[in-house]
């Protein structure tokens, strides 16, 4: 055995070293504590979540005389998460008995005023509202329902939330959270050592970190301050911060922060945080209106939003919800009977994308881009703005259904080229230029390439009305003016030869403008456009609302210009609006967190095209629908619904367009392949099919423009352009002319005749041109 050595210098140095090390560690600990303390207090004190701007659809206005049946309104109410009740005493409930509907409308802070919740009684007759009275029986002339929340403008990292104040939280929720997640919440100091020990024991046995003994405070700290890595150091930091948080803040504050912070689900790129948004996301209604089974489900989801995702793993989620209900009984939070009833309820999930918390990425993208003109990105994603948009959920749903329905039909048609097509639908209100629906593809909930705004494709014959407008605006042309449907052979500046043809390769000689447009004759249009001048035509594009004139090439006359569907909608809206250009807008109002109005685009109109020229063009475009390429729409539309429009097909059938309008709505539909393959479809078989399906399904009014003072209607023959009598044959059309204009009378059937020969036997079937040759780079 070696003799004991006396203490040496080495040992003394070691001891001193330990002391220094200890001091250093202590110092480091204090510094760390101070740093964490600072972080916790400053960040939590001014507790501001980055609040994405909330975007609402336009509210439904209810008024006497409105065309809306009780059944339709009930549909709308359930879309907003209203529940049927025997006695509609709570906000968010209704009762319908035949034509009598009682609704307890929710409170809502609109852009212009706060509307308190109130009970209303509506009567219906013959599909419209005949009376609206409040609780005291006083007539209410007009009333808004709370609008549908359609999403939010969340930042790139995808955190979305809808912050709720303690008053908006049903009292059951914090009780349930405590019972299930943290029973000692009211008494512990931020951490629960016993629970940690228990968890450690379980973890050591399992050999890895699996189960957390985290208090609600720790969970909050983890989500609010730290990233999700599970290391021991994180654990220590988390515990220290939880203790600090608990020491410095009230339990109630911590609970409210937890309710708003915690992660509860995923919707594509969007992370659903907080119970406020989760309630909308899963049930389509405000948190305050949730009942026991719904609250229990949300509490169940806390433990693993992906593992217990009620939409993907319904069984698992249901099992855990019922487990939560049992725990609530054990802990005395709810009675056994109540819990049993709740356990027998289905999950009660809202259909995603159909109800509140639904998600319209293409439209939201437009909202974001329009707001970006006035706001910084950070203002939109963080400042808690409320955005009142122009989206009409009914029309949006009609547009999605029409597009998906037609594309599915084409999938089944057996034509190889027509399989897997994509499409876009844009709907605006013609007078005010509001975008009421926007579908960016057949998977409308998919947040990707926004075709409606970014897919710039050749517009084909959609360009023709613009050529005719430019001609009419010169004052030298009328709907009866004869144009040459004769072969064209042009040498282009780059040396290429351009020899466009008609769709059926025929030439028709001299035809009146109205016929050339309705039958979409290529050669007549090119000759007309060259006669009018490419410069004038390019200018007309800009007058109608294109940001800049397209390049002046002859092929622009047949639609070689690449435009996005929204650009087309802007131009055609001016045609639908009597020559008044109204910049399309997706936003009506923006308010800040306190409800104060901020800058937002307002309704604007400017008269950019001669009303007389637009009127004449519009009447010619009605003929497209009556006897031209748009004729097929008729069977889909209600009788008496006058519409005007134009088909468009690009080279080799790559793009199939239809743009057209009623008195109140403009619809632009595009169908094509993303990789620009030929579709085998003309504007009639693709775009028009979607268009007419939608136009026939929404509530809209006939197109009946007022005759401008300087014009008068005259009957002319569709085939010869000569003045005729409406009694002679089927080819008489009523067209507007300058008052007293000289017209050549028809010989076979002059004006005033009661009968006469049909000058050309029968109307030709609707033709649709293949537009451009050679292609424009």
């Amino acid at each position, binding site marked *: 055995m070696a003799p004991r050595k006396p203490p040496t210098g080495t040992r003394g140095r070691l001891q001193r070293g330990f002391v220094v090390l200890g001091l250093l560690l202590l110092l480091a600990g204090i510094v760390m504590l101070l740093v964490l303390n600072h972080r916790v207090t400053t960040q939590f004190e001014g507790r501001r979540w980055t609040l994405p701007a909330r975007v609402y659809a*336009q509210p439904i*206005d209810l*008024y*006497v*005389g*409105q065309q809306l049946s009780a059944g339709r309104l009930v549909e709308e109410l359930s879309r907003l998460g209203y529940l049927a009740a025997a006695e509609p005493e709570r906000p968010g409930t209704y009762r319908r008995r035949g034509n009598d509907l009682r609704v307890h409308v929710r409170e809502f802070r*609109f*852009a*212009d*005023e706060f509307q308190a919740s109130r009970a209303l009684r509506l009567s219906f007759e013959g599909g419209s509202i005949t009376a609206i009275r409040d609780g005291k029986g006083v007539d209410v*002339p*007009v009333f*808004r329902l709370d609008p549908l929340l359609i999403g939010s403008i969340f930042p790139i990292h995808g955190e979305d939330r809808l912050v709720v104040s303690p008053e908006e939280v049903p009292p059951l929720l914090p009780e349930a959270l405590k019972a299930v997640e943290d029973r000692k919440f009211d008494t512990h100091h931020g951490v629960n050592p016993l629970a940690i020990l228990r968890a450690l024991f379980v973890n050591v046995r399992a050999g890895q970190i699996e189960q957390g003994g985290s208090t609600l405070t720790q969970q909050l700290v983890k989500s609010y301050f730290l990233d999700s890595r599970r290391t021991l150091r994180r654990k220590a930091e988390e515990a220290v911060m939880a203790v600090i948080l608990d020491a410095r803040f009230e339990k109630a504050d911590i609970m409210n922060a937890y309710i708003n912070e915690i992660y509860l689900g995923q919707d594509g790129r969007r992370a659903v945080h907080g119970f406020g948004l989760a309630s909308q996301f899963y049930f389509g209604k405000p948190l305050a209106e949730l009942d026991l089974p719904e609250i229990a489900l949300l509490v169940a989801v806390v433990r693993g939003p992906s593992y217990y995702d009620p939409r993907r793993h319904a069984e698992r989620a249901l099992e855990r919800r019922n487990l939560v209900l049992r725990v609530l009984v054990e802990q005395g939070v709810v009675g056994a009977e109540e819990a049993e009833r709740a356990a027998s309820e289905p999950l009660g999930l809202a259909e995603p994308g159909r109800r509140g918390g639904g998600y319209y990425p293409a439209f939201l993208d437009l909202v974001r881009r329009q707001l970006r003109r006035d706001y910084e990105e950070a203002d939109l994603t963080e400042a808690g703005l409320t955005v*009142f948009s122009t989206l009409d959920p009914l029309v949006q749903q009609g547009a999605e259904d029409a597009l998906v329905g037609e594309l599915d039909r084409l999938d089944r048609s057996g034509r190889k080229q027509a399989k897997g097509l994509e499409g876009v639908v844009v709907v605006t*209100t*013609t*007078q*005010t230029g509001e975008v009421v629906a926007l579908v960016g593809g057949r998977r409308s909930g998919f947040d990707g390439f926004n075709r409606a705004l970014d897919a710039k494709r050749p517009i084909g014959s959609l360009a023709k009305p613009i050529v005719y407008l430019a001609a009419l605006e010169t004052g030298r042309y009328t709907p009866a003016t004869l144009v040459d449907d004769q072969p064209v052979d042009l040498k282009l500046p780059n040396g290429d030869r351009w020899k466009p043809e008609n769709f059926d390769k025929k030439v028709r000689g001299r035809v009146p403008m109205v016929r050339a447009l309705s039958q979409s004759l290529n050669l007549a249009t090119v000759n007309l456009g060259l006669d009018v001048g490419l410069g004038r035509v390019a200018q007309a594009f800009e007058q109608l609302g294109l940001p800049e004139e397209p390049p002046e090439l002859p092929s622009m006359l047949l639609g070689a210009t690449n435009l996005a569907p929204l650009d087309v909608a802007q131009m055609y809206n001016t045609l639908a609006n*009597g020559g*008044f250009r109204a910049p399309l807008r997706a936003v*009506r*109002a923006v308010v800040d967190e306190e409800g104060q*109005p901020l800058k937002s685009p*307002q*309704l604007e*109109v*400017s*008269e950019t095209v001669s009303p007389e020229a637009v009127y004449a063009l519009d*009447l010619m475009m*009605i*003929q497209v629908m*009556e*006897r031209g390429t748009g004729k097929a729409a008729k069977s889909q539309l209600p009788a008496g619904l006058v519409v005007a429009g134009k088909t468009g097909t690009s080279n080799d059938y790559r793009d199939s367009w239809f743009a057209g309008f009623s*008195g109140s709505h403009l619809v632009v539909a595009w169908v094509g392949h993303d990789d620009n393959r030929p579709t085998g479809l003309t504007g009639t078989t693709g775009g028009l099919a979607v268009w007419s399906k939608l136009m026939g399904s929404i509530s809209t009014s006939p197109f009946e*423009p*007022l*005759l*401008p*003072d300087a014009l*008068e*209607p*005259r*009957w002319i023959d569709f085939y010869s352009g000569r003045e005729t*009598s*409406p*009694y*002679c*044959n*089927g080819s*008489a*059309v*009523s067209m*507007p002319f300058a*008052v*007293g204009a000289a017209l050549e009378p028809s010989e076979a059937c002059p*004006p*005033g*005749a*009661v*009968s006469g020969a049909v000058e050309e036997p029968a109307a030709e079937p609707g033709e649709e041109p293949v537009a451009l040759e050679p292609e424009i780079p």
Partner: protein
Amino acid sequence: MHRLLLVLTALLAVSACSVSPFRTDKAAATSPQTQASRNAGAGPVLQTPTEEIFQPDAEPVIEAPPPQIIQPTPRERPRRPAATLSPASRALVTQAEAQRKKGDLPGASVTLDRAMRIEPNNPLLWIEMGRLRMDQRNYPQAESMGRKALAMSVGDDATQSAAWELIAQSLRARGRNAEAEEALSKSRAAAPR
């Protein structure tokens, strides 16, 4: 004038030969002449004959309706009754006026947007919106709203007069006094006595 003469000639011709080979039951219901007389009363909405009127294989040939005598009215253009607001938009216009008086112009704008949604074709709402734009000192837009109201109220003297008055105000606000005078005289000329 031309149109009325045309209708008269047609009527005379129809009554002269009582059987028209092309007309059917449907034609009687939607014949151009009923449309023309409806238009004369209801407004100058231009209608086109639908294809149903002329069906070559339509068998039953019926008698034309008895001739109607339409007295040409002394004025060239058809008149329309003055536009009115529906109860719902009247309530909203009243509310917007109250908001404007309080200086809450954005609120008034939101309220008028609502009314526009209900009756987009009512020229009176466009005039209201134009007046709001005046308050907002957006004079060019005030004028545009007035011009839109003009286009939607052809034949409605009272509304035309109000629209011209709005245009005159917006011109005067921009110091374009001569044009303002001209607009004002148009307003006076259109004003129903």
